[in-house]
């Protein structure tokens, strides 16, 4: 299946891009997807420092991803 990944904050700088689409094997959780891209691209932020959103809503890391999902990886916030 195909999913879209978005990298916010410092993750965008680490990955070198904001958004990409990937072909992944189902079933796949958001946690496993982040572990995969961390390993693949050498990202340094651990998953437990992040929050994840799927299709523009906060999600649990154990959510099973579906075809066409947009998965946003979000470091700690810095607004205000």
């Amino acid at each position, binding site marked *: 299946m195909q999913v879209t990944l*978005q990298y916010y904050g410092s993750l965008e700088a680490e990955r070198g891009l904001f958004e990409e689409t990937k072909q992944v094997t189902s079933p796949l959780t958001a946690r496993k997807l982040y572990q995969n891209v961390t390993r693949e691209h050498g990202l340094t932020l651990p998953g437990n420092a992040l929050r*994840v*959103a799927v299709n523009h*809503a906060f999600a*649990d890391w154990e959510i099973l991803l579906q075809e066409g999902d947009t998965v*946003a990886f979000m*470091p*700690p*916030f*810095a607004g205000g």
Partner: protein
Amino acid sequence: MNNRLFFSLSPQPIDPVTEKAFLTDPECGALVTFEGWVRNFNDGHEVISLEYQAHPQLAVAEGEGLLKDIAAAYPIAAIRVIHRTGHLEIGDLAVWIGVTAVHRQEAFAACSGVLEELKQRVPIWKKEHYRDSPVVGFPQNQSPPPS
């Protein structure tokens, strides 16, 4: 969301006079506003400019949610929040908060509460450019709770 509670992201400069005009209310005796400005130093570096990035859908949804929570906790009349996105220079207005109420105490408390909640809940990130370093900085308000 009704007209009493308004949360918005803006890629354009914020005009406090324009924002304040939305809150005019003859039944209110207090308007408390907060302006967050871009500061020229942070974490031991001289900051020359910065960029705010937001998750647009989630930031507005969370912002509207926190305004509802604050309005439920304090007897206020209205809250208006505008947060900048994009490139900002030193002294630029990064966030504007306005709270009206019958009396000042709840307006002060609610305004402070909005800012504290915003920092924790709303997915916005800051990228700082420093004079003494080619490396950009990504300050954080706190570590988020695990999802």
